[in-house]
């Protein structure tokens, strides 16, 4: 984990570099990427900081941050669960898998659990159709899922 002060410094350095080049205002997306890399998401304090340093109005930064799906405006969980809803997985019961995850974690797509453990997303095809239906937790693929197996996998994370 990087200390909060170091994150601030790292972002500051990145912005100072952007400012020294041509058209610093066009570096906004790169800066938001860097901020998200450091903090995991973009909150108001970070965007306020970018606004003041780069002299860009907050309404404009907010417009960019909400336009692109890539930017997270809420904190991410410790682990990310991504349920595949591609054709093969869907045919093999991905909808039930997704329902199970939602019910087990009490969250909807795009949300993070209260305890900060998981963030749920959906995806289209992870290239492992032979294992359908699949989900990915962090960088590991779990295949041939049933509702029961799905619950067990999730619970195993709490036992670790």
């Amino acid at each position, binding site marked *: 984990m990087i200390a909060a002060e170091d994150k601030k410094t790292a972002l500051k350095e990145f912005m100072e570099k952007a400012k020294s080049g041509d058209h610093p205002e066009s570096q906004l997306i790169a800066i938001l990427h860097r901020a998200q890399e450091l903090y995991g998401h973009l909150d108001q304090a970070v965007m306020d900081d970018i*606004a003041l340093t780069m002299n860009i109005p*907050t*309404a404009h930064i*907010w417009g960019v941050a909400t336009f692109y799906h890539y930017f997270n405006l809420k904190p991410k969980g410790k682990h990310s669960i991504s349920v595949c809803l591609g054709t093969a997985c869907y045919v093999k019961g991905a909808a039930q898998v997704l329902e199970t995850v939602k019910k087990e974690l009490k969250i909807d797509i795009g949300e993070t659990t209260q305890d900060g453990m998981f963030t749920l997303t959906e995806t289209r095809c992870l290239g492992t159709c032979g294992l359908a239906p699949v989900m990915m937790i962090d960088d590991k693929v779990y295949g041939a899922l049933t509702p029961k197996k799905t619950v067990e996998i999730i619970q195993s994370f709490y036992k670790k």
Partner: protein
Amino acid sequence: MESKTITITIDGKTYQTQEGLTIMQAADQLGFHIPRLCYHPKLSIEGACRVCIVEVEGVRTYVASCAYPVMDGMKIRTNTQEIRRARRDIVELILDNHPQDCHTCERDSNCELQRLAASMGIRKRHFEGERKKYEKDLTSTSVIRDPNKCILCGRCVRICSEVQKVTALGHAHRGFQTVVMPAYNMPFRDSVCTTCGQCINVCPTAAFVEKVYTQDLFAKLNDPSIIKVAQVAPSVRAAIGEAFGLEPGRAMEREIAAALRRLGFDYVFDTQFSADLTIMEEASEFLERFQGKGKLPMITSCSSAWMKCVEQFHPDLLENVSTCKSPMSMMGALVRTYFADKIKKDPKEILSVAVMCCTAKKYEASRPELMVNGLPAIDMVVTTREIAWMFKSAGIDLLHIKGEDFDEPLGLSSGAGAIFGATGGVMEAAIRTAYELYTGETLMDIELESLRGLAGIKEGKVTIDGKEIRVAVAHGLGNAATVLDMVRKDPDRFHFVEIMGCPGGCIGGGGQPYAGINSMPLDEECLKKRAEALYGIDRRKTIRRSHENPDVQRLYKDFLGRPLSAKSHQLLHTHYKVKEPRGIIPQELKVR
């Protein structure tokens, strides 16, 4: 460089026009009014609505005429069956995602979308799709934001960022979910919004409207237990006729005084009186600063949107801002004290109402430091639009009413008080009085042409007793930012700076009547005519200098003592403080 004359064909006829124009500009000059929605001549081209499409021979698709330049030999068709159908479809699709509540809408009969739909011949709604549903933002003292009415033309976003350089608004999210909102979707009240209301002026629909107090006011006017007092800003009289179908430029001060009495007010005072008083205080304050006591340049403080703007966007210059309250708040303070004493009433029993051209005055009235002996200086602010509606609703025929005078002791004004409403007017009025206060001689040549007109920034010089005084005038918060950068760069460049928050000054305020059928919001011709109405009032007055106003003289003799006295300071002056969130003005402003 002269632009080249070229030949174009519109709808089969050949015309000469100038290179460098867009199709829409060329067509406008030739008398073709191509339908439009997101376009505004004062703002950048957005090309968002596609309503202004035309057919250009040789071009595969229809082009947006607001953005497409004319070229020599171009053949343009504006009104074929195909183009009419395509345009109508576009407007129908906009309507599809718009509430069907025209007859209960604030902008009914004043709505550009409504007019456009009528001109397209849309008499039935064909599409029934998903419709957006959002909460209204009612948090601001002045401006209500209703995203359900918004058609995403972006005019508000552009005027807020390009003309005002406030950038309180932006487009957030995307596609069907796009909403115009402040940063972080924060309540409007907590944003950098200066409450100037220019978003209301340019909005084609009712996505932005002022916070309306008309029903509350009707209720109070029917309460016999309170004394009802009104004051009327200069610019209201210069524009209210437009709400009754008159061409811009008719001054209606005596009509308004009579109409307000019919509405139920017991006393009708003139904000022009307190404008004269402001000049007494402000000219005196300026001369003190000029003689070494205080910071120069002194910057005027009458404009409420500017007050909020300076506290959030220019906190480094707070000491330069005059401590004088605005004429509205000075009047409010006098009504609760001087006037309450005169009529021997408890100030609590007085309802103090301000009729203003301005939405930001609603905000100003809520500033706690302007309270007088624990009471708000102003109980209620209604705009020109609101009072015009109230007159109509109460069956008061402003066009045929017999004019009446304002009431004593706060109703008599000089011509200097009248011109407050136009950009440059406060400066001109202040110079008329400062000259005499300083030299003891009367300034004869009182019409300062260099400070009049709609140039964004005006500069002038006057010589007072051999000393040169350099002044600057800016209207619109974007121009203000430019002048302030000039001040930061060279603090000695000006001695006195007038800033008004709205384009044209108060005459272009956020509470003025909506543009008529043949006009655009903030149309320069309209602003000029409103200004001319005020300059006309000035010319017709025998008293044209604030210090010659006999009722102002009496006020000082009987009550205040002299300008900048302890009593004046207590009642007529205020202070400013840095406010959050901090406003940001992007990109380098060109410093002349």
